[in-house]
Structure formats: C-alpha cells, structure tokens
C-alpha cells in the first residue's frame, strides 16, 4: 500500500474549509488528499485581502474574528472545575517571593575570596571582612543579618548561579519564562503555579493567593487563584442588608454562558464566605513588621497560614532590584536599602509565623542576575545567573546546594555568572518535597524538562 498523505503529516481534517468535496478531486482518497493539499498551498499563497473579499460565511467570519484568543484563555478556565475541599491543619504552604528587576546575586550571597570579583567591582564589592559566613566560601551581605540567625538554626539558605533557560537578558522575557515555568520554547499559556494547583487537585477557595492587585503570571490559568491586597479588603461593600441577595444575583448573572469571566465570578463569590469568617476573627500579628508594602503582603500571608484556611501557594512581589546605577556599598546605596527592607521583612514574617514556619517554605527569586563588572554609574547592567533565597521548614540546614564553579573566565556565561543551576530543578524540588507533587506531575508543570533535584531541601 502506498503511503497516504496523512501518513506524511497531512491530516485529512486539515483540509481548507473551502475545499470542495474530496471525491471531485481525485480518483481515490489518497490522491484527492494530495491534490487537496496542493490546492491548499496555492490558496494560502493568495493575498489575504483577496481571500476576504468574497465567499464569506458566518463560520469564516467568526474564525477571523479573534474568538480564538478568548477561547484559548477561556478553555483553560472552563475545562477546570473549581472545586473546593476541606483545609487540613498540617498542610504545607509554599511562598514565592519575586524580586522583580533582576537582583544581583553577587551582592547577596558573596563568594568572598573570589579574586575576579574584586577586580571587576572596585567600588561596589561587599568586602570579605563584612560578610556573614555561611558555607562553601559564601558569605551573606551584612544587611541580611536577621536572616543569618535563621541560617544558624537551619531555617535559611540560598542557591547560587541559578537561572531560567531564557537567554534574552530582557526583564520581560526572563520574568515571563520564569513565571510560565518553561523553556522559552514551551507553548504553555498558564503559569507554573497554576499547573501546581492543577496537580494538587481540589483545595479550599483560599488555596492560592497573590498579594497584588492583579494575578502574577505564575498563577494565571484555570485554577482560580485569588489576588488581593489584604484579606480585610476582600468583602462586598455597599450592599447594605442585601448581601445574600446580591451574591445570589451575581451568581446567576455569571451563569448560563461559557467565558473566563464566569469562572472568575465563581471564584470571587466562593471566596467571599471564607474571607468573611477570617475577617470576623480578632487578629494581631505576632511580630512587628517594618512599614512597607512587601511586609503588608507577608503579614497577610502569615495570617492566612495561621488561620488554617488551606493556603498552599502564596505569591508576593518586591521590586526595586534593577540597579543600573548607584548600587552602593555596605554603608549606603540602593542595595543596602533594598536588602534592609528584604531582610527585616522576611525576619518579621518568620517570627510572626512562629511554629507555623516549619510548615511554610519561602523561596525568593529573581528573573536574572547582573553583570559581574560594575558600570560607570556605579551599577550593574543585565547579566545571567542569580541567587535564590530559601527560608522556613524542610531545608537542608547549614548547607548551600547547587553547582558553583567559581567565576573564572571559562566558567562565565558571556562574561557573567553562569546559570549552572536550572531554576526549575529548585522549584520542582520545592513543590515535590513540600506539596507532594509527583514526578509525573512535575513533567506537566515543567514540560520538556528533565527534573534533577538540587538537594536544597531535606
């Protein structure tokens, strides 16, 4: 039997919609398909304008209307049943802190004795004498002293030379790559954390939140994560005594059609009741947080963790790391300022959680590291490998995981810190060890990636 076009990758259902009845095209089906394919190629070569000028049908009009975009977005959502289960008191939570702007890892987790770094950073190097010693020759920036105490008790660590597969050195591409959780080539539109939720299966309405006004890319998808800025603001206001009736009317208004908005409304209305219960309880944080937006997010996450609302995944951002100028020294400048905010806020979060810190694991990561060589404005341009910070329960205490080969020229990536450790291996380890995601699950969360744990978690 001769090979048919479909054997060679011309699916029969791939014929152009305008293709006339196949039987008229050729003596047999295989021949007809071949000719149909030729006709299609010819057709596609025609001017698009010409294509549009006649022969319109409703179906063809709709195909060109951009409904596909709605559907692509919609089908993720409508195919997902937003189902809720009961919270469990020992369920673990992962907190993802995104250090937006590209944090310089070599100012945070510093290979103090490295000869190259000294040469390349005459003005902004953190001096070896000021470093808080960790392991493998690394020391911590002195502004992170509050976290060094946690290091000593095995509740804080870091991973060097970490990167996404992205090569663009563009904030947007690198953030997108990290948050979609893929090689840039993956065709996935959902965020990696959304896929983690899908693998976890049903949870409570508050199983995933982001402390922000819109969802971060990592949580976009069909799993109904909630963005909020403080649990106390998650309430329907201005409804007087008509709360129940309003919620019921809204539920009906978003029923009877398939659209992403319908799923979004279901999530919103479902979460209102839980939020009401949490808000009805008196609450004081068990630690004093510094006064900044990042801390307010952390404080709220701590509250949700302690309230046993079933929180599994939480995201919060802290921007301000794009230090092209004025990075500074251990006594002044942007890095000192930002690390002070970061360190004091994270330390307050740890204290606030108390014993719940053991069932919480926080990872702070960034889209890329910065160049090794300082620039003329006393800052650093976009580089490659960076550092992730880990805090909370389940860490391999007192050790620094991951490959680190120093900074000799042949090690570097285009002159900068290499991405020796794939961020997906760290995140994969995090969600498998802390949330119980299976290896099969990981292959869906990070498609086209062969998972190899870094050994950062116990």
């Amino acid at each position, binding site marked *: 039997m001769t090979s048919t076009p479909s054997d060679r990758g011309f699916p029969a259902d791939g014929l152009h919609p305008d293709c006339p009845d196949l039987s008229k095209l050729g003596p047999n089906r295989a021949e007809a398909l071949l000719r149909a394919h030729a006709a299609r190629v010819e057709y596609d070569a025609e001017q698009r*304008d010409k294509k*549009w*000028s*006649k022969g319109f*049908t*409703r179906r063809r*009009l709709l*195909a*060109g*209307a*951009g409904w596909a*975009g*709605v*559907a*692509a*977005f919609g*089908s993720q*959502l409508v195919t997902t049943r937003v189902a809720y289960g009961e919270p469990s008191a020992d369920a673990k939570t992962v907190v993802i802190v995104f250090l937006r*702007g590209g944090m310089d890892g070599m100012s945070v987790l510093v290979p103090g004795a490295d000869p190259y770094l000294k*040469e*390349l950073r005459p*003005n902004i190097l953190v001096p070896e004498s000021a470093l808080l010693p960790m392991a493998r020759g690394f020391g911590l920036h002195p502004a992170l002293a509050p976290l060094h105490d946690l290091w000593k008790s095995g509740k804080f660590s870091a991973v060097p030379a970490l990167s996404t597969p992205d090569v663009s050195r*563009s904030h*947007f*591409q690198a953030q997108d790559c990290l948050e*979609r959780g893929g090689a840039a080539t*993956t065709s*996935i*539109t959902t965020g990696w954390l959304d896929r983690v939720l899908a693998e976890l299966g049903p949870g409570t309405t508050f199983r995933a939140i982001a402390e922000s*006004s*819109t969802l971060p890319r990592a949580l*976009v998808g069909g799993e*109904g994560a909630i*963005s909020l*800025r403080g649990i106390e603001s998650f309430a329907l206001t201005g*409804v007087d005594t008509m709360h129940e009736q*309003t919620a019921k009317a809204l539920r*009906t*208004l978003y029923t009877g*059609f398939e*659209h*992403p908005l*319908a799923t*979004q409304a279901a999530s919103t209305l479902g979460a209102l009741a839980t939020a009401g219960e949490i808000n009805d309880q008196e609450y004081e944080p068990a630690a004093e947080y510094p006064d900044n937006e*990042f801390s*307010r997010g952390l404080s709220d996450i701590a509250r949700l963790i302690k309230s046993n609302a079933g929180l599994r995944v939480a995201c919060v*951002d*802290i*921007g*301000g790391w794009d*230090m*092209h100028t*004025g990075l500074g020294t251990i006594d002044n400048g942007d890095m000192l300022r930002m690390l002070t905010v970061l360190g004091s806020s994270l330390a307050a979060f740890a204290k606030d959680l108390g014993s719940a810190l053991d069932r919480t694991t926080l990872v702070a990561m960034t889209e890329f590291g910065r160049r090794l*060589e*300082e620039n*003329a404005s006393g800052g650093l*341009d976009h580089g490659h490998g960076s550092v992730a910070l880990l805090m909370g329960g389940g860490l391999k205490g007192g050790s620094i995981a991951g490959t680190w080969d120093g900074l000799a020229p*042949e090690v570097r990536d*285009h*002159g900068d810190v290499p991405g020796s450790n794939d961020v997906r291996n760290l995140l994969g380890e995090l969600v498998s060890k802390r949330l119980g995601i299976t290896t099969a699950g990981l292959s869906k969360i990070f498609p086209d990636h062969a998972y190899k744990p870094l050994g950062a978690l116990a």
Partner: protein
Amino acid sequence: VYEDHQSLRGHYPDDVDEPSEKPVGRRKLIASLMGGGLGAAALGAAVFMDESVSGQATAGAARELPEGPGEHVPAGPPPSSGAPAKREPAGAPVRPKDAGAFDDRDVSYVRGEGKPAKQPPKLPGGGTSGETESEIRVPAVPDSAEQAVDTADLDGTATSVRSVMGESASLLDWSPVAHLLRRFSFGPTPEMVDEVRRSGMTRWFLRQLTPHRVDDAEADRVWRAYPSADMSIAQIRAAYKAGDQTAMREYSQAVLGRQLWSNRQVFEVVVDLFANHLNMSMPSERSWDSGNSYHNDVIRKHALGTFREMLQDAMRHPAMLRYLSNDLSHKDSVNENLGRELLELHTIGVNGGYTETDVRNSAYILTGRTVDKNGEFYFDPKRHWTGEVKVLDFADANDNAENGLDVGDRYLDYLATHPATATMVARKLAVRFVSDDPAPSLVDRLAKTYLATGTSVVAMLAVLVCSPEFWVAVGTKTRRPLENVTAAVRTLGVKPGGDPAKGVVRIYDTLAKVGHRPLNWQPPNGYPDVAGAWASAGSMLQIWNLHRTLVRGTWPDLVHVAPDKLHGDGVPASADAYIDTLCARLLHQRFTAAHHGALREFLGDHAGSGADALTMAGHLAALVLDSPYFALR
C-alpha cells in the same frame, strides 16, 4: 493602607536620585571572547585598554588596537577576566527568537506557540444564519491617509457583515453603534450613542479623527483645573522643587479627566494606546520636570500623526532619555537600557531578529542623547561613541561624533519603517480595538497600510474600522479595570463638579486598588492589553464595590444622577419594564431571560410594581454594571 504599592514594584527604569556622572573604572579590561575557531587561544589573549577606543568585537582575529587616551597596562590578576568593552556573546549570536520567545508579553496569554487556534467558546445569543456565501468589501491597502479616510465606509461594512453574520456570536447584541463606541471610547454615553445614530458611524468617526473640530469645553474646564498640565519643562522647573512629582500626578489626573469627559474619545483612546506603547511612567522621580511635556509634545502631538515622528521625538525627549537611563550613557560606559527597549518594545520586537550585538550597537548609536542642566534635550558629541555601527541592515561609519545625532535619526527612521515595526504597531492596534488574538489577515492589512502611508496612524484606524474582522468581533474583548471604571462613570452620567480636581482625584486614587491608574505602569512595556493578564477574583470584587460607590454618588465634587432618575422621570409601568429600561439605559441592550430573572428575584417583595422596584434603583443599577454584559467590551 496600600497607597504606596507601586513604590516597591517594577522599578526597571533607574528611578533614583540624580546620579553621579563621573565615570568610574575608566580603564576597562577587554578580553577577546571569540567564538568558533579561535577558542581557548583567543580566550587567553586579553589586553587592557580604554573602553572608549575599543573596536568592533566581531568574531575573528584579535583586532589591532588603536592607541587611545588610556595607556595599555599589563594584565594583573585575574589574567583574562571576561568583561569586554564590546560584548560579543561567545559562539553563534543568540536571538531570543531562536529560543522560541513569544512575540510579546500579550501574545503569551492567548496563544501557545505553534498551537492551532481553538474553537470559539459557546455563548448564548448565537443564532445561526445559513452558510450561504456573501460578498463583503475589504479595504484595499491605501496609498495615503487621505485615501484611507476618503474611502472609509463604516456603515456599509457593518451592514454587509451583518448580512452574513445574522445574530451576534456574543453575549452582547449585534449593535454596530454600541460596538464602535465600546471599542473607540472610554465607555458609551447615552448622548454619544444618540449622536452616532443621528450622524451615521462613518461621519462620526471621521470627525473624531480631526479632534480639533470637536468641541470639548467641559473636558477643557477639567484640564484647566490642573495648571501644571500644560507646563513646559522650564515652567515646571520654575514652579516646583527639584524632584517634586506633583506635576506628574496632576497630569495623570488631568488625563483621566479627559478620558472621562472628553468628546474627543477616539483621540483619547489612541493617545492611551501610544502612551503605553512608548511608556514613560507617571509619576517617576527622574523625569519629574519633563513627564508632562513628554505626554503632550510626543504622545498627544503625534497620536493621530505618524509613528515615525512620534518615535523620533520620543528618542530626543528628556523624559524618555531619563526614564531609560540614556542620559547617563557615555562612550566610556554605555548604558544599554534604552538601546535594548527601543528594539524589543518600541519597534521591531523581541522576535525582530536582533542579537545582543545589535543591542550593543543600538546603545552606541544613542550615546550623546542626554539632558542639559536646564532639563532640556541636548546632544553631546563628547559622549557619543564613534566607530562603525551596525544593527540588522542599518550600518553607518559613524566616524564623526558631531554627526552622531544624524546617525541616530537615520537609525530611528530605519527602525520606524521596518516591516517588523509595522507588524508590531499594527498588532497593538488590532489587540486594542479588535481582539486579544487578532486575525493575521487584519494585522497584515494594517501593517501594509502603515508601510504604504508613511506610518500613518489615521490610515491604520480608517482601514481597521472598515475591516470585517472589526465588526465581527463584538464582545471579544474584556474591559480592563480602568476601562470598566471610566465606562461606569460615563454611562451613569457622573459629571465634574465645581472643583473638578477634587472629584477626579477620588477616582484616580481608587484605581490604585485595581492596579490600573492611567500612565502609571512602571516598566517600559505598558499595561497589558489582554483579558488574561487582568483576570483576578480580587480585582473583580473591587470593581463590583466601585460600581456601588459610583452609583451611590457619595464622592464630593462629582455631579451624580440619582439612581432612581437613571431611567428618566416618572414611574415605570412594572418591575419587569423597569429592569428592561435600566438595562437599555446603562448597556444599550437587554439581558437574557435568565439574567432578567436574576434581577427580578433580587427584587423579591419589591417586584410587585414599578414604583416598588424603583426603591431598589441603586442596587439594580449596580448589578447591571456588575453583569458580564458590562464587563465585556
């Protein structure tokens, strides 16, 4: 409590204090990071030199280095550190495209790469007409903006599309006027719907394309409530303390005022699009004196002109130069920020085919474009990097610093008229006005129009509104938070009061809760323009709450229509009639029977009569605004 949310977010531009311009580390280490055949031998062959005289680091033999102002010094430890003055990635140049990057952020929300388009979602109201074939006129690519405008026929196109389509495929009714206004305004008002119905869509739209012919007394009054809105750089520097961002905040509110009440709605919508495409975030510290001028003299000036001129003016405006650090760029220490974003975001796009070497060259070309001590644009030949430059197919000897500005202008013209830029700008328009995932046929037609008409925005708009793709796309877009709020203000008939600034600031501040204050996106890529980027249960709840605040009308210095007067005067005949009237008034259409039933059930004991239902007017009006009909655009 979350007032200062943005301060810790984003921060990609160097939004820092007046920087030290003193170059540090003048003597740079250049390592021959050659790829391919030279390998390790080349890696070892490092010499020290002043970066200002470094040559093109093309892969190949070590270059002969000209004597520069800095003497060559022997290499100390480390022997061959990799910090080339001219950064050439080792090995083959890597383009983001090779790694399979999406064309831009917004694409990544709607389309997996290489995935076939999915079937449209099922929506009610999708009655079918037959599959009989019909003719629809598709605009030819015009030679000029004039030709595009002369041949524009919105009404005719809409009618012929309707004849094929039959009923709408969306939850939203087939109503060309409502569709046109939802897409080309910050929300239809009853007055505007009447006006377009009277004059016809073609006439209305073409008139909107010449905004100076449209009376705008009310919005002008609001604009004048902000004295700084029209101030030049010099005037702001005279009126405010250095670093004071008050004028920028006022400007953003003045812009919100125009979005809410201007009669030149098409202009305002297009301004908003380009303000995001060439984003310069407001407020931001370093451009405190020049941000207002940027938006007036670059964006608003050229929004209905040519993109080429808009780009040229943007790249010599102090606000953009400061926002993306180009004022700091110096031949001895080149800052790549603007050079990169110019390629990635403003023109050819991340998949336009450039390499890291192109980025570096792009930055070289822009050196010298800086800001003088009076805060004005200034080209400083002393800062300009000289030597051969090449970005894609643009090449120039660039051997005389005095001509550096001209080289840049030619480079920008090259980029502005590049086919990849045409597609980028065309897609932005198609995404804003048609669909989150617009048909390639439409993008292609708009891109051709862009190239054929000398980058005319008006020509693209005229072709877009006469394209079948536009008229079929009823209900395919979802209102982003700002658009939802402005549309609510507009349809409720909320007007500026005696002190307009006091009223506008309440709306402006509230928009922070939903993360969508005008001009306020911090990174240079502008607010996302697709629904997927905004989907969030929390945001939806905040918007529902905002609807109630607006319906109640408790904010000062805004003139509200009382909820029980929204339908007009008099007592409705029945509860059902009242619900229909209210929907028609606020949405220009009816609910489905099931959704109508939801409001009737909500009324409960108040459904007995029109008068009784009217006592629940505020609740009902808010629910109509909360509904999916209002959430769609």
